[in-house]
C-alpha cells in the first residue's frame, strides 16, 4: 500500500551532515523505516534535488546563505510537519561563531589575509551570497519539532521519528535532551 505511506524529505543546509550520519546509526531501524515511509528526497541516500509535497520535512544545519533561505522556505511550503535536527538547525550551532564579525571582514580575512597572493574573494553569481548573520531555522521559518544535539544520538532521532509516525509531536525530556 505504497500510496498510504507518509512521505519524508530531508535536507542539509550549512552543516556537517553529522545529524544525517547519526541517523544512519539507527542501524536495522532503517529497514523498518523504509517500509513505513517513502523518502521523497534525502541527500544521503538519493539524488533528488527538488523538494515536492511531503508529510514530514527534516532539516539539518544553519542558515548562512540565500540558497539556505530558499531551500528552507520551500521545505516549509511543501511539508506539514517541519523537524529541526541538531544544534545548528535548532539554535544556530557552531556556524554562528561567524556572527562575531561582519561578513565582508570574514571573507577578506579568509580569502585575502590568510591566503596566497593570487587568491581573490569569490564573486561568481552561481555562488550563493552569505546572509549577514548565521541563524537557526526558526529565525526564518516556523519549526514544529526540535531535536537538538551535536549530533542528536541515533536513539533520540529514532524516538523522534517513531513518535511522528504515531501521529504525535515529539518533545525531548531532560534525559533525551543533549546539546
Amino acid at each position, binding site marked *: 500500500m505504497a500510496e498510504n505511506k507518509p512521505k519524508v524529505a530531508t535536507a542539509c543546509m550549512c552543516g556537517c551532515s553529522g545529524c544525517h550520519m547519526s541517523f544512519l546509526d539507527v542501524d536495522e531501524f532503517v529497514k523498518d523505516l523504509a517500509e513505513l515511509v517513502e523518502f521523497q528526497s534525502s541527500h544521503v541516500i538519493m539524488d533528488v534535488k527538488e523538494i515536492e509535497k511531503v508529510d514530514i520535512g527534516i532539516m539539518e544545519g544553519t542558515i548562512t546563505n540565500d540558497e539556505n533561505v530558499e531551500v528552507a522556505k520551500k521545505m516549509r511550503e511543501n511539508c506539514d510537519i517541519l523537524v529541526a535536527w541538531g544544534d545548528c538547525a535548532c539554535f544556530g550551532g557552531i556556524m554562528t561563531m561567524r556572527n562575531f564579525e561582519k561578513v565582508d571582514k570574514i571573507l577578506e580575512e579568509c580569502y585575502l589575509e590568510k591566503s596566497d597572493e593570487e587568491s581573490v574573494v569569490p564573486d561568481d553569481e552561481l555562488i550563493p551570497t552569505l546572509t549577514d548573520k548565521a541563524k537557526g531555522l526558526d529565525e526564518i521559518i516556523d519549526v514544529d519539532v526540535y531535536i537538538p544535539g551535536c549530533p542528536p544520538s541515533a536513539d533520540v532521532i529514532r524516538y523522534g521519528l517513531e513518535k511522528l509516525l504515531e501521529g504525535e509531536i515529539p*518533545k525531548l525530556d531532560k534525559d533525551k535532551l543533549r546539546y
Partner: protein
Amino acid sequence: MNTVNFNVDGQDISAKKGMTVMEACEEHGITIPKLCQHEALENVMACRLCSVEVNGKQILPSCGLQVDDGLKIQTQTDHLKKYRRKILELIYRSENHYCMFCESDGDCELQDLMYEHEIDRFEFPRMYPEWPVDSSHDYIIKDSNRCIRCGRCVRACDEVVGNHTLSLGGRGINNRIIVDAGVPLGESTCTSCGMCLQVCPTGAIFSKLSMFKGVKKECDMTTTTCLSCSMGCGTNVYTKTGHIVEIEGADIHKESGGQLCEFGRFKPLANKGERIKNVILREDGEEKELSLSEGLEKASEMLVKSYRISAYASGDLTCEDLDAFAYAMRAHGALFDVVGAKRHRFETEVKRRINMIEGHFVTDIREIMKADNILLYDTSIYHTHPILASYIRRATSNGTKLITIDAYEDKFWNHSDKSITIESPKTQLTRLVNQVIKEGKASIEDLSRVSSILGGLRVHPKDVMEIVNLLEEATYDIIIIGDEIIDRWSLRHIFELAKLEGSYVISLNHAGNQYIKNLETEGVYEEPEVAYILAGDEEDQADMKELIEKADFSIVQSARRSELTEMADLVIPSLTMFEREGTTIDINGVKNKVERITEPKGGIRSEIGFFEELAKMR
C-alpha cells in the same frame, strides 16, 4: 523557640531559625534550582533562579529568604518554571555558549539546568558579544564567553582565599569578571590556588592541566589527604582509566571552604618528570641498570660495611612509610632524620629551657581567624603554607592587625598593617620587645639608648614600640613562626615573648606529615660514609643535595628523575603522593587517611616491603 514550622509544596516542614528557605528545603530533600548559590560562599541572590512563590503572591529568591512560621512556599508551579526557563534562556543568550566544544560539556551546572527545564528552542535572538579568553596563567584559563556573572569566583577569592584578586567590573551588558585592575591573570596577584575554577558552574574558568581529559561525572572519585604541607587538606581526586583527571578540595563544609593550593591542586598534575623504573647504579663513571632485588642487595651491602650512615627522609610521606624507613635504617645503625624534624627538636629544647607549656600553642589553626593581632615571623609561609596564609588574609579582612617580620620582601605586603624588614638575626628585635615589656614603660628615647649600647642594630625603636603597644592592648594575639626560622635564639626570644604576653603560638616546619613530632630523630652525620635519602616525590631539597655531596656513597630513593637522582651513586624507585597508602598527621594533630589513588607506575610496588627486607639483611 529555635524551630519554625512552615509549608513547602503542601508538605509541613520544620527548620532551625535563621536558616534560609533553600537550606531548609535541601535538608528535607526538596531541590530548588540554583546557579549563583554555593555552600562554601555567602548568598548574593544574583541569578534569581532559586525564586519561589511565597504565600501565593510574591516571588522571592529562596537563598536569601529566611524561614519563618506560617510561610507557604511553592517551588514548582508552572508560573515559576516558565520564569526559570526565561532566566536560563536570557543567561544563555547573553554570552557565547557552545556546548559542543566547551571544556565543561557534561560538567556544567547551566547545561544541567537547561536540560532539566527542557529548553529545546529559544524565544529571543542571541547577542554574540565579543569577549576575550585569558590564557596567560600557567594553570588557569579564564574564558569570559562562558561566564554567567554569578560571581562565585569573586566571592571564593574574597571569602575563602582572602586574596581579592577577582572582582566584577564594567556596567550593564559590559559587566564582567576582572583580575586586579584589569590585568591578565598570569600577571596578577593570583596565588594559583584554583578555588575559582572549583566553584565555577560553567566552563568560564578551567584548568589547563585537566581540560579535555574527561567528564568528572564519569570519573571515579576518591577522597584522600594532601601530603604536601602540614595543613592536611582533604582532596577529592577524580580518576579515569587509572589516570588523574582533576583534583578538588573536599572540605567544602569546613572553614577552609574546600580550598586547595597550587601544591595540592596543580603541581601533582603538572609534574611531568620521568618516572624511575629501574635501580640505577653509577660505578666508576659508568651507569648500570639493575633489578629491584639487585638494588636491595647493593644497598644492604653498602649499609652493612659502613659505620657512619646518615638516613634522611622527606617529610611528605605517610606515618607507615616513615616508621618502616626508620626501622630499617636503625637496624643498620644509621642516624635518622626527617625534613622539618630539626626545627622541631630545637623547639622542644627551647620550650624545655624556658619552661613553656603546651597550653601556649594553638591547637586549631583556624583560631587565626579569631585573633585580634597576628605577629608573623617569616612571610615565606605565603608560598609554603598557602592555606594558613589564606586564614591570615581572611583575618586581616575582618579587622585583625597583622605585623610581619621578614628578612626579605613582605609577601603579605597588601594585607599587613606593618611590615618590618630586618635581616637575621631577627632575635634582636624580639629581644628588645621583650625588654620593653619586662622593664615597663620604656620611652622611645630610652630605647634608642639601649639600641646604641647594643651597637650596630638595624632595629628601629619605633618598630619595637609598635609591636609592644599592639601586643599590650590586644586580648587575643597569635604569633606565627614560619618554617625558615631555624636558629635557637630567635625561637627562644619569640617563645619568651609569647610567654610574657600570654600570646598563642603557631609554629610551622617543612614537614608535610607532623608525625615527625612523635618520631625519634637525632640529626645525621654531616660527612657520612653512606647517605640514604628517601626523597619520595620531593625534588631539589637543598639539604638533601648537601648531604649527597658530602657522602662517600649516596643512595637516593625517588619517584622521578631530578637533580638529586643525577647526583646519587645508587638510585632506587619510589612512590608518588597518590601511590602511597596509610595515614598522616596534620598540624592540629589530627590523623587523616591517605588513600592509594593510582597503581604504582614506577619500579616499586611497596616501599614498606622493601624496607622490611632491607632491615633483615644485616
